[in-house]
């Protein structure tokens, strides 16, 4: 590869490119991670103790997580809720993506894509706050439902996980719609027609033809949404009730309120492992390689 690059760009240019690449990879990506991992295996010491007899590698930080019932529960609840967010987002996005990719006219695609993207021109915090207003006890959603007679007393959307789930599905819809759209768009419409011609109904056409074809897109979307959800801070912080704390909030607390970076690093590292594990599991379930996800 270096030979090809040299042939194309000449020696000096190749060197610059490679140096920049390595700088990015080592200094900006690898090194910070390694420092955090290093932190996570050390006790939280005041500066004068650094290098002293207590400055040794230990599993203590990880043991805290394992031993702390509340933190452990929140960890597993974060996994579960993130999976739930991922599935909900998939369910909401699939029909939209299918419509855009197979049924919509060019004009409709433009319009809907624009409508999907416009909210992202606004800061995530503001977007989430707007949901806080919409979902609040005396907010417009309750007023609407009351007015239309669907409910006789307002619902507390923001207590429990409901608000967080809605906020996250909303926040990550694009990350699901676009990979799905890409995957479904490449499906030859004649396949759908052929299945229909052979007698298949709507559900079977999707189950046997469209979804298998869209698998790489579904996997990519699920991985993205799961990681964003598991690592989200703003949505649970704003829309969550005291009972629906997210693991990221605990990590935040260790860093900025507890002042214990070592503990925070250990917690963050566990979350990273979890995400990598999730990617591996999804790739296994969908039987796809890393290359398919990039598509």
């Amino acid at each position, binding site marked *: 590869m270096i030979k090809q690059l040299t042939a194309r760009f000449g020696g000096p240019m190749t060197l610059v490119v490679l140096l920049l690449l390595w700088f990015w990879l080592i200094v900006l990506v690898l090194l910070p991670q390694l420092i955090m991992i290093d932190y996570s295996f050390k006790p939280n010491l005041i500066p004068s103790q650094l290098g002293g007899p207590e400055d040794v590698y230990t599993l203590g930080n990880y043991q805290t997580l394992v031993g702390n019932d509340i933190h452990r529960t929140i960890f597993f609840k974060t996994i579960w809720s993130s999976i739930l967010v991922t599935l909900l987002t998939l369910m909401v996005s699939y029909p939209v993506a299918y419509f855009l990719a197979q049924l919509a006219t060019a004009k409709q695609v433009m319009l809907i894509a624009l409508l999907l993207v416009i909210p992202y021109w606004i800061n995530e915090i503001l977007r989430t706050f707007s949901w806080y207003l919409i979902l609040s006890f005396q907010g417009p959603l309750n007023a609407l439902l009351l007015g239309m007679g669907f409910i006789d007393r307002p619902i507390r959307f923001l207590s429990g996980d409901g608000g967080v789930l809605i906020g996250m599905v909303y926040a990550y819809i694009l990350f699901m719609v676009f990979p799905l759209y890409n995957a479904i768009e490449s499906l030859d419409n*004649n*396949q759908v027609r*052929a299945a229909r*011609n*052979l007698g*298949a*109904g709507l559900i079977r056409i999707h189950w046997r033809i469209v979804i298998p074809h869209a698998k790489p897109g579904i996997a990519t979307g699920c991985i993205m949404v799961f990681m964003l959800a598991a690592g989200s801070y703003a949505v649970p912080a704003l829309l969550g009730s005291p009972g629906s704390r997210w693991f990221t909030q605990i990590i935040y607390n260790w860093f900025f309120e507890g002042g214990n970076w070592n503990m925070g690093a250990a917690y963050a590292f566990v979350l990273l492992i979890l995400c990598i594990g999730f990617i591996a599991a999804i790739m296994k379930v969908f039987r796809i390689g890393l290359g398919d996800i990039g598509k």
Partner: protein
Amino acid sequence: MDSRVHLDNISMKFGDFTAVHPLDLDIQSGEFFSFLGPSGCGKTTLLNIVSGFLEPTTGSISIGNEPMGAVPANKRPTSMIFQNLALFPLMSVAENIEFGLEVRGVSKAERRKVSDRLLELVDLPHSGQYRIDDLSGGQKQRVAIARALAVEPKVLLLDEPLSALDLKLRQHMRTELKEIQRRTEITFIYITHDQGEALTMSDRVAVMSAGRLQQVDTPIELYRKPKTAFVAEFVGENNRLPGKVVAVDGDQVLVDCGAAGQFRGQLGGQLEPGQPCGLYVRPESLKAATDQDTNRLDVSVETVNFEGAHLTLETRHAQLTSMVHVQADQRAYGGQVEQGANLSLGFKTEETVVLPEDGPLETIHD
């Protein structure tokens, strides 16, 4: 099995554009019926109407005497072979063939029997486990046929299924399609712009142009007795001499072709004396003139093409702008015709067709 297809006053409009003008058509049970026409003539639209993918603007369809108006595409007794075949690439060959049966809730063992039998029929035994991508073009073609036959349709719809194949394979598949049709006794509706395909395989052919049926006939009748100028020019090679009707005499017409002379031909449509018309003679009907010939045309040879069994000559009459194509046995003219040679051509009245000129070409927007 009654698998007649009846089209009653079917027409199709897309916005202002009329893809198919109102037409009636009866296709017999077990017939190999082709729609032949240039692209954009409305033949694919008709196929989509029969399959139920399109709702006709007017008219109704029945298959085997059952009205299809309220029957959705996935419930019709039709099965389609798509131009690009549209096999399911993520399923094996057997799964493709069995898909229609899976939909109908047929048990796995039963399905396997059917797909094995069909793979035999299309000459691909023991290949059920292969992936679609592992097959050659011709094999894919056969799988598509087997998949369409698996659901035991009354009518098989074929949308230019051979167009992606190379010439040799295409000719081979023609024979095979015809053979499969004979064995299964299913009504075949075949769409093509390739007249060779239509003429060799079909019992009857409907020639279409600009959304209208030009002529529905057996291949031989289409070739020998075209009823419109479009059919005469679209089906097979033909020479057209423009002229004016001098006299109509029973089923014969005397035509004045100006400087080229006067000729006699069969009356092919409605003609009155004085009306402009076209005189059509096939290249193989032009022979070296003999004393018996009433129709004679003197030409000079411009190009000679030796094509093995026969020669094709491009010749020109001194006063005519268009070329006259002649096809002759390679031994004709003593086996020797040279460029620049002068020939006197003769042609029989019964092999000459006189047709009125087609009206002005349909504008696309009605």
